[in-house]
C-alpha cells in the first residue's frame, strides 16, 4: 500500500495507471459464472426444503439435525421432520451447516464511483446512481456466504454521499438489488483521509479545506447550521402559502441540504468513518448538540478507549478484526476492540471495506473468539444480526427465524473453520450461488470461449498490436476505503 501511494504521488500529473478502469481490470482476471446463478434461480421453485442440517440460527442457538422450509422467499419453518409439497426442491444437508447470509456493513462493491471528493460536503450524491449489478466481485462475495451489503461512499470528505443497502441478487436487474425498506443513510468521515494528508497538491491548485480535525468539526457545524436555516426557510414559505400570500417564490430546493435535514429529523442514518478516540468524542458531542444520532461508527479502531461514551450515545460500531498499523491513525488499534466494545454493550459488527476480504468475513468473525473470548454466538452475531441491526433491517435478515427473508448459505463445515466453504447461497429463497452448478457449467463456458475466439474480431491483429494489460496486484492488507489518494479524491477507508 505504501508503495502504491508513492507511485501515485510520483505520477500525480501523468496519472497512476494507463489503461482501463480498475473495475474493468478486475473483470479480466476471473469471470464469474453468472449463468450458474441465473440457471439456478430460474428453477422457480417457490418451495425449498433443506434437510438435516446443523442450523446456526444466531438468535435461537445452534440446532442439530434440523430442517429449514423456505416458501415464497421466506423462512416458513425451522424444526425437525418438516414437510414440503411435492414440487419443493429438497436439499439434503446432512453433515452440513446453515447460517444466515452474512451482512457486510461497509462495502464499496458494485459502485462505479466511490468518492466525490471535490467538496467537503457532498450529501447530494447517491451511491444508488452508481450501482453496477454485473461487478464480478459480487459473485465472489456470494461464494463467501455474503448476501447483504451496505454500499457506502468513500471517506474523502467530511460529509460524503448517500449509501444504499443491497441484496446481492447477481444476474438480476439493478432495481431488484435494492434492499426493500432499508432506512436511508449517509457517509461521514473524520481524520487523515479527510485531511488529505497523503495527497499532493498540484501547482496552481489549492488544498481543499479542511486540512485538520479542527476544520472537520467546523465543516460539520457549518453544514448543520445551514441545514437548520434551510429547513426554517421552507417552513416559513409553507406557512406563507398556507396564509394564501400572493407572488411567492419558493426557496431553492437544495439537494445538498435536504439529506442533512433528514438527519436532523432522525430519518437518515449516519455511518461515520473514524479512527481516533478524540474525533469520536467530538462527533458524538456535536451530534448531541444538534440533536441527532450517529447510527454507526465505521472502523472506529480506538473505540475500545471510549466504549462507554459510544454506548451512552447509542451508536453502533463496525470495525475490522485484526488490521492495524497501516497508517498513523491506526497505530493504537488492537484486535480486542470488537470484544471490548461488545462487553461495553455496543452493537458491534465486523465489516470488510474490501471486495476481497468480504469473501472471508466468516474467518474475521472467528478471530474474535480468539481475541477477547467472545462466545461462538457473539462472534457469529458480528457478521449477521448485529450489522442488520445497524442498518435497520434486522426484521428481515440476520438470523434464521420463521417469517424472515430466506437469505442463507449452506456451508460444508462450521463457518468458523478455515476448511469450510459455501455450497449454496440463497436470497429470498432463490439460489444465487451454487458450487456444483458452477463447476458443472465450466466446460460449457470453455466451449463458448473457444467458439468466440474463432471470430475474426477476437483474433489478435496479424502484426503488432498492444500488449495486454498486466494483472493488477493488490497489497496484502488492502482496504478499498484506503485506495488511491491522488488529488481527485478516491480514498475511502
Amino acid at each position, binding site marked *: 500500500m505504501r508503495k502504491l501511494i508513492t507511485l*501515485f504521488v510520483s505520477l*500525480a*500529473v*501523468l*496519472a*497512476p*495507471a*494507463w*489503461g*482501463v*478502469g480498475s*473495475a474493468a*481490470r478486475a*473483470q*479480466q*482476471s476471473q*469471470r464469474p459464472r453468472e449463468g450458474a446463478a441465473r440457471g439456478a434461480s430460474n428453477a422457480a421453485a417457490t418451495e425449498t426444503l433443506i434437510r438435516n442440517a446443523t442450523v446456526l440460527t444466531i438468535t435461537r442457538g445452534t440446532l442439530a439435525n434440523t430442517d429449514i422450509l423456505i416458501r415464497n422467499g421466506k423462512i416458513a419453518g425451522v424444526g425437525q421432520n418438516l414437510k414440503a409439497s411435492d414440487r419443493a426442491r429438497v436439499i439434503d444437508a446432512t453433515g452440513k451447516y446453515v447460517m444466515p447470509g452474512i451482512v457486510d456493513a461497509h462495502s464499496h462493491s458494485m459502485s*462505479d*464511483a*466511490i*468518492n*466525490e*471528493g*471535490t467538496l467537503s460536503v*457532498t450529501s447530494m*450524491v447517491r451511491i444508488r*446512481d*452508481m450501482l453496477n449489478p454485473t461487478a464480478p466481485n459480487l459473485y465472489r462475495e456470494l461464494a463467501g456466504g455474503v448476501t447483504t451489503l451496505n454500499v457506502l*461512499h468513500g471517506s474523502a470528505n467530511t460529509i460524503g*454521499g448517500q449509501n444504499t443497502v443491497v441484496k446481492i441478487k447477481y444476474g438480476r*436487474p*439493478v432495481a431488484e438489488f435494492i434492499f426493500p425498506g432499508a432506512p436511508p443513510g449517509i457517509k461521514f468521515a473524520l481524520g487523515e483521509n479527510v485531511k488529505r494528508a497523503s495527497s499532493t497538491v*498540484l*501547482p496552481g491548485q489549492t488544498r481543499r479545506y479542511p486540512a485538520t480535525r479542527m476544520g472537520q468539526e467546523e465543516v460539520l457545524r457549518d453544514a448543520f447550521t445551514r441545514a437548520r436555516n434551510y429547513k426554517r426557510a421552507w417552513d416559513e414559505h409553507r406557512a406563507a402559502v398556507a396564509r394564501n400570500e400572493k*407572488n411567492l*417564490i419558493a426557496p431553492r*430546493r437544495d439537494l445538498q441540504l435536504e439529506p442533512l435535514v433528514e438527519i436532523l429529523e432522525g430519518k437518515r442514518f449516519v455511518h461515520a468513518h473514524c479512527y481516533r478516540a478524540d474525533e469520536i468524542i467530538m462527533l458524538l458531542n456535536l451530534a448531541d448538540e444538534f440533536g441527532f444520532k450517529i447510527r454507526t461508527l465505521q472502523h472506529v479502531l480506538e473505540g475500545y478507549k471510549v466504549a462507554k461514551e459510544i454506548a451512552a450515545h447509542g451508536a453502533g460500531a463496525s470495525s475490522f478484526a485484526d488490521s492495524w498499523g497501516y497508517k498513523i491513525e491506526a497505530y493504537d488499534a488492537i484486535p480486542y476492540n470488537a470484544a471490548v466494545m461488545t462487553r461495553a454493550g455496543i452493537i458491534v459488527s465486523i465489516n470488510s471495506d474490501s471486495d476481497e476480504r468480504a469473501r472471508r468475513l466468516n474467518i474475521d468473525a472467528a478471530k474474535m473468539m480468539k481475541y477477547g473470548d467472545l462466545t461462538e454466538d457473539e462472534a457469529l452475531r458480528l457478521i449477521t444480526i448485529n450489522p442488520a441491526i445497524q442498518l435497520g433491517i434486522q426484521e428481515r435478515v440476520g438470523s434464521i427465524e420463521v417469517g424472515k427473508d430466506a437469505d442463507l448459505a449452506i456451508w460444508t463445515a462450521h463457518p468458523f473453520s478455515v476448511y469450510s466453504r459455501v455450497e449454496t447461497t440463497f436470497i429470498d429463497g432463490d439460489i444465487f450461488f451454487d458450487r456444483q452448478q458452477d463447476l458443472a457449467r465450466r466446460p460449457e463456458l470453455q466451449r463458448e*470461449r473457444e467458439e*468466440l*475466439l474463432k*471470430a475474426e*474480431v*477476437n483474433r*489478435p*491483429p*496479424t*502484426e*503488432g498490436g*498492444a*500488449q*495486454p*494489460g*498486466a494483472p*493488477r496486484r493488490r497489497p496484502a492488507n488492502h482496504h478499498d476505503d484506503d*485506495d*488511491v489518494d*491522488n488529488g*481527485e*479524491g*478516491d480514498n475511502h477507508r
Partner: protein
Amino acid sequence: MVASVASSPTSWVARAQRSAIDTYAITGARIVTVSGAEIARGTVVIRGGLIAAVGANVAAPSDARIIDGTGLTVYPGLIDANTNLGMPAATAPRPGGGGAAAFLAAQQQATPAVSSPNSSQPVGLQPEILASDVVRPGGEQIEAARNAGLTAALTAPREGIFMGQSAVINLAGETPQQMIVRSPVALHVGFTPLRTGTYPGSLLGVFAAIRQMLLDAGRYRDANAVYEKSPRGVRRPDQDKSLAALVPVLAREMPVVMYADRQREIERALDLAQEFNLRLVIAGGAESWRVAERLAAAKVPVLLSLNYPRRTTAETPEADPDPVRVLRERVDAPKTAGRLAAAGVRFAFQSGGLSNMNDYLANVSKSLDNGLARDEALRALTIRAAEILGVADQLGTIEVGKIANLTVTRGDLFARERRITHVFIDGRPVDLKPAPAPPAAGGTAAASGSTRASASGTWTLRVQVEGQPERSLTLTLQQETERLSGSIQGDFGSAQIANASVGASGDIKFTVPVTTGTQTTEATFNGTISGNEMRGTFTTVGSGAGTFNGTRAGSTTPQ
C-alpha cells in the same frame, strides 16, 4: 443604405457563382427513394439545391447538367446521426520553457474548446452553448465523411456534462451559415466529470449536479413567471442563461441526447429522463439491445454507434485471456441493430468516433449479416435519422421539394465492392477523394508510395512533467494512410490509443485513457514525427501538461 450596398457584394458574388450551374439530372439510374417504391430505371432532377423531380418517366430539363446514371444507384444522402464534425478542439498549451512558472502558465493556456461568456456555470455545465455558434466548415474529417458517402450530420460540442446544443449540418458549404440545416436540435449530456479539480469531479457528482441544475431551471422558470406577472414587491430573480437554456428541455420541447453504451449507463439515463420527464435520445447504445423493451416502451430512440469493438491486443501467452464477456461483446456488436429493429426501438446510425470512415458502411453491412433487414438499415442511415433529429421534411428521402442531398453508388450500397461515385449536398456535387485501398500488410504506408510520414513501429517515449522524474513508456503504432491505431504501455499496464491521426507533414496526435483510482480521464498528445524521432506536448485534462520525445526502434520501421 450605403452600408448595405457596401456590405452586399461578396455575398452577391457568391450567390451568382453558385447559380451558374444549379440544375442537374441523374438519368437512367436505379433510384432508392426510401419514401416509396424503388425505381428500377429513372431520373432525379435537382434544381436550386432541391429535388425538383424524380421518377421513371421524368425528362431531364434542357438546362440541366446530365449525369449518366446507367449502372448507378441513387440513395438519399446518408446522415451521420451524431458527430463532432466542425467542432473546435481544446487548445493545447504551448511547451513551457521551464520552472514552476512556465508550468503554471502552460496550465492556464490550456483553454477549453468552447465556453460561454458571462455564464453562471463552469465550463462543462453550460447548456447554452450552441454548436451552430462554433461550427467551422472544411477540414479533413468532414472530407472523410463525404468520401464515405455521408451528406449531413448531427454535430455537437465535444465535451462536458451539459455539453451544449447540437445542430444538423450539411457536410458542404463555405460558411457555417451555409452548412446549418437546423439548430438547435437537442441538448447533449455526457457524463464526464469536470477535469478542473472542482465539483463535480466524479460520476457521483455528475448525477447530483445534473439533478440540481434541472431543479434550479424549474425554479428559474417559475420565479420569472411570478416576477413578469407583477414585478412590484418581488425580488428580481438573477438572469441566468444556463438555466434558461434548460427550460425548453423541461418542457419537452427540446430532446436530450445522453451518451450511454453499457446497459447500466442506459438505465441510468432512462431513470434520469423519467425523473424529470425529459425527451430522451440515447447516443452510443452498444448494449441498448439489453434494454430494448424499456426503450421501446418509453419511445426512446437510439443513435447507434457503428464503432464496433475489435481485438487490438497482441497474442501474448503470459497475459490474462480476454473475459468471455469481452469476447461476446465483440461478436455481438453487429447484432445490436437487428435486435433493436425486432424490438421496435427506433434507431439511426452514427459514426461514434470511428477512425476510418470506410468502416461506416462496412459495419452496417455486418449488421445485415447479423439479422438487420436491408430496408431497416437503409432507413437507419437516412429517414430515421432525419425523423429523430427533426429534419424529416428536409432530408432523408428522395422526394420532390426536399434538400438535394444524394449518395450515388456503383454497386449496391451494402455490397462489398460498391463504390461511392457521386455525392450531392445542397444540390451540388462534391469532389470525392476515395481513400486509397489499405496496404497489403500493416505498416507499409511509406513503402507503398505515400508521402505521409510513417508512424508505424515501436517507439520509446520519454515523458516529462515539470518537477517530476522523467518517465519512459512504450508506444506501438500501426498506420494505414492517415489512420493510426496502437497502444501505449507503462508500469501500470497498457491502453489503446484513440483519436489518433498522422498528417502529411508528420504531425501526430492521439489520446490515451488515464485511470486514477476509479476515474478515467484522458491525456492528449500532440507532436511531430521527423524520421525516427517524435516530439511534442501533452495535456492531461484537468491535471496538467508536459512534454514528450521518442525514438523508434530501428528494426520495425520500413524507412
